[in-house]
């Protein structure tokens, strides 16, 4: 049976496990119809021109998570930023793991989607925000149809979350191929601030496909920093859709560190709905082997006096394939917009490929919009300079690559996280230097 048919027929079984007499369930029923109609995206669609899901859709995925499988903290400790005091929401095979997590309801709500859906006190927020900004394409609809678990974060007005929040999804794949569909909702009130770190980690050699959807609502003058660490096994694939709606004078930034996975596709959509907004999209991609990373971004400017900054760096070795597809839309009303987009790439091998498509669609005249895209190599002269001063070739190359990605890394505001990312990069480049020069 094809995966699509399997999923559509699984929906009935899914209905038996959830409360069907809610407004959310109407949304789910509607979404499964949309998925049935649209199905999985194919390469014929312009947005998927360079990324084919064929190779990962052929597996017979388990759709329903089993009961909680126990994981010892010491086994998975290395996936946490252990020197960072943070709230933690941990999922194992899509099920919440209470003994690994640290949630709170004190001033702010850091808890589970399933409990937020079940408790009436959250229904106002859920009804107001749930599935209002997510796109209605096939994959997002599939997630909506099966949405039941994930992180639920709500920060009320005038509150600064004192600790960062870590969301980690583990997959054990004990029963074979596994499909996970987490659904996260983040609502940040006026003048509030929060930092969130998200990670998907597979602990198995079995194929894992994660189809994650996150909706983030940023109210007036709020500040949200969102960090995504994607450093997964060669048989784990991720389709991550993040949709962010921003109100006046808010600042939202999303940093994506894509260091591995079979196929990683990031759909990052910013919708600005007020004046004086700043949207920041940063990304570093370092991959090799047969890995494939696709960044698909959209920034939609609808009101005057807003800004957006995009900076994506990519380093591709061996047979890796990188895709960048960035789109900026400036509506007629959005005068005085400043929108910048930059995509720089380094190819280290003749079999590596980069496909870049930075697009601008501008309907307003008084704007400053620019985009730049480069593909190049490491500077041989710089390398020679370092070698002549006793820095080994490998280390020299690593330093140059680190410098190339540096201005994205500089913008990471959590020191422990930055440290961790530096270590990941050092490991990735096979050198034992700290980069914290």
């Amino acid at each position, binding site marked *: 049976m094809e995966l699509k048919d399997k999923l559509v027929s699984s929906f009935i079984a899914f209905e038996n496990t959830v409360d069907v007499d809610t407004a959310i369930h109407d949304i789910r029923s509607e979404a499964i119809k949309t998925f049935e109609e649209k199905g999985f995206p194919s390469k014929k669609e*312009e947005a998927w021109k360079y990324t084919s899901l064929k190779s990962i859709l052929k597996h017979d995925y388990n759709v329903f998570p089993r009961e909680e499988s126990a994981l010892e903290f010491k086994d998975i400790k290395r996936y946490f930023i252990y020197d960072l005091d943070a709230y933690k929401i941990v999922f194992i095979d899509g099920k919440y793991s209470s003994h690994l997590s640290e949630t709170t309801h004190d001033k702010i709500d850091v808890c589970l989607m399933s409990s937020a859906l079940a408790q009436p006190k959250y229904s106002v927020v859920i009804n107001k925000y749930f599935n209002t900004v997510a796109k209605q394409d096939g994959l997002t609809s599939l997630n909506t149809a099966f949405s039941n678990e994930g992180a639920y974060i709500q920060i009320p007005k005038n509150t600064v979350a004192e600790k960062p929040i870590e969301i980690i999804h583990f997959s054990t794949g004990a029963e074979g191929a596994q499909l996970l569909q987490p659904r996260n909702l983040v609502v940040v009130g006026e003048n509030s601030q929060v930092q969130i770190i998200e990670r998907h980690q597979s602990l198995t050699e079995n194929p894992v496909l994660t189809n994650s959807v996150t909706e983030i609502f940023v109210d007036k003058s709020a500040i949200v920093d969102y960090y995504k660490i994607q450093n997964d096994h060669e048989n784990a694939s991720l389709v991550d859709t993040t949709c962010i709606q921003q109100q006046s004078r808010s600042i939202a930034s999303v940093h994506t560190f894509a260091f591995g996975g079979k196929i990683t596709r990031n759909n990052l959509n910013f919708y600005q709905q007020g004046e004086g907004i700043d949207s920041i999209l940063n990304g570093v991609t370092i991959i090799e082997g047969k890995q494939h990373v696709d960044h698909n971004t959209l920034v939609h400017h609808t009101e005057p006096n807003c800004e957006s900054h995009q900076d994506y760096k990519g380093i591709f070795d061996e047979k890796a394939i990188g895709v960048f597809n960035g789109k900026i839309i400036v509506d*007629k009303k959005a*005068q005085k917009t400043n929108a910048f987009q930059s995509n720089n*790439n380094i*190819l*280290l*091998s*003749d*079999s*590596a*490929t*980069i*496909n*870049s*498509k*930075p*697009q*601008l*669609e*501008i*309907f*307003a*005249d*008084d*704007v*400053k*919009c*620019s*985009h*730049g*895209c*480069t*593909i*190049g*190599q490491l500077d041989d002269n710089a390398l020679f300079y370092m070698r002549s001063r006793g820095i080994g070739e490998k280390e020299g190359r690593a330093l140059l690559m680190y410098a190339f990605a540096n201005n994205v890394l500089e913008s990471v505001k959590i020191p422990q996280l930055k440290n961790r990312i530096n270590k990941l990069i050092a490991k990735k480049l096979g050198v034992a230097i700290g980069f914290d020069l």
Partner: protein
Amino acid sequence: MAYTEDDLKKELETKEYEYGFYTDIESDTFPVGLNEDIVRAISLKKEEPEWMVEWRLEAFRAWKQMEEPEWANVHYDKPDFQNISYYSAPNKKPKYNSIDEVDPELLDTFKRLGISLDEQKKLAGVAVDIVVDSISVATTFKATLAEKGIIFCSISEAIREHPELVKKYIGSVVPQKDNFYAALNCAVFSDGSFCYIPKGVRCPMELSTYFRINQAGTGQFERTLVIADQGSYVSYLEGCTAPSRDENQLHAAVVELIALDDAEIKYSTVQNWYPGSAEGKGGVYNFVTKRGICEANAKISWTQVETGSAVTWKYPSCILKGDNSVGEFYSIAVTNNFQQADTGTKMIHLGKNTKSTIISKGISAGKSQNSYRGLVHIGSRAKNARNFSQCDSLLMGDECGAHTFPYIEAKNKTAQVEHEATTSKIGEDQIFYCNQRGIDTEKAIALIVNGFSKEVLNKLPMEFAVEAQKLLEISLEGSVG
């Protein structure tokens, strides 16, 4: 049951006559519609050999299976392909008897472009008794070209006179089945130009500059084939700055350039077809396929100034097949009122040390939409390929749009690709500065636009550069408000 005479009679009575379609090849205009008979009739009219007929039919059959492309960022009412007459002989009867009858607005534009009175008459369709200058100039130059061994004639003539060259190269760069409009063009093209520059010859003049009058009226499905043999050079000019009041709605031209080893082709286009009324009614649909192939050390340079047409869909491309070959694309696209343009280029790097440069300037005013769409492809064997692209857009007024869709694909680690794009408007301070010095706003805008387009205007042959500059001014007239 046996088939009786009665059955036959009955069948003949009920059945429509299968061969009822009648084409009079002697008449000057064919009936509307398109089918195999029409394709054959066009070919017959042109006295083409059998292989050409087959070639056209093959294209036609492929075209029937194809669908009109919809990916471009333009919106228009699809033309009805069965409601077009695919052949009409050039009209020999003058439209007007004297220049006084011509629309004064048209004459005013001619005057401002600096077109001579004789040329004005011819362009407007006024009966001209003797255009001494033009004809004698044309004859002299034809003689010079023949002396150098350059073949420059209409494509129909080339099919008859030089079938070996045409057969070898036609469709080699733009195959019959390349795309919807190219296939249509292959099936029904009525005329166009053919140019062959022999080995090592440097063509002494800008081809077609002096022929623009004589070569006018080649019709809506134009086909151009330019072959530059080893080590030769040619600069080819197409189009005309003069506003052309063409009645044909649909133009689907195909241009193929072949630059053999060490050859260089410079191809310049100025297009100023009817853009439709200020309310967005009418206007020409310009769906063109232009492509060139470079062998080793060859160079192809496309320069275009696009100011006319209601809808433009055009991507002059270079296939850099040979090592060390160079491709260039310089473009100015101006849209005003309700015009829509989706234009750009494709640079396909296949050979080693290939270089390409893309400079595209888009100016949109009124309610128009202007898109740049380009592809830079670096193949896995294209070592040390280099590309530089720059596309700038200038917006005038708050109801127009400027869009950029660059595609960059690199498969080789030695590739160096740079792409830059900016979008801006004319600054109020710039205009104020000019006003302060006694330059009125309209002139100031013309000045700034010229500065913005300078990089591309410089690439045009000199005679055209001056006219093109004035043309930009005229196209943007009334867009300040």
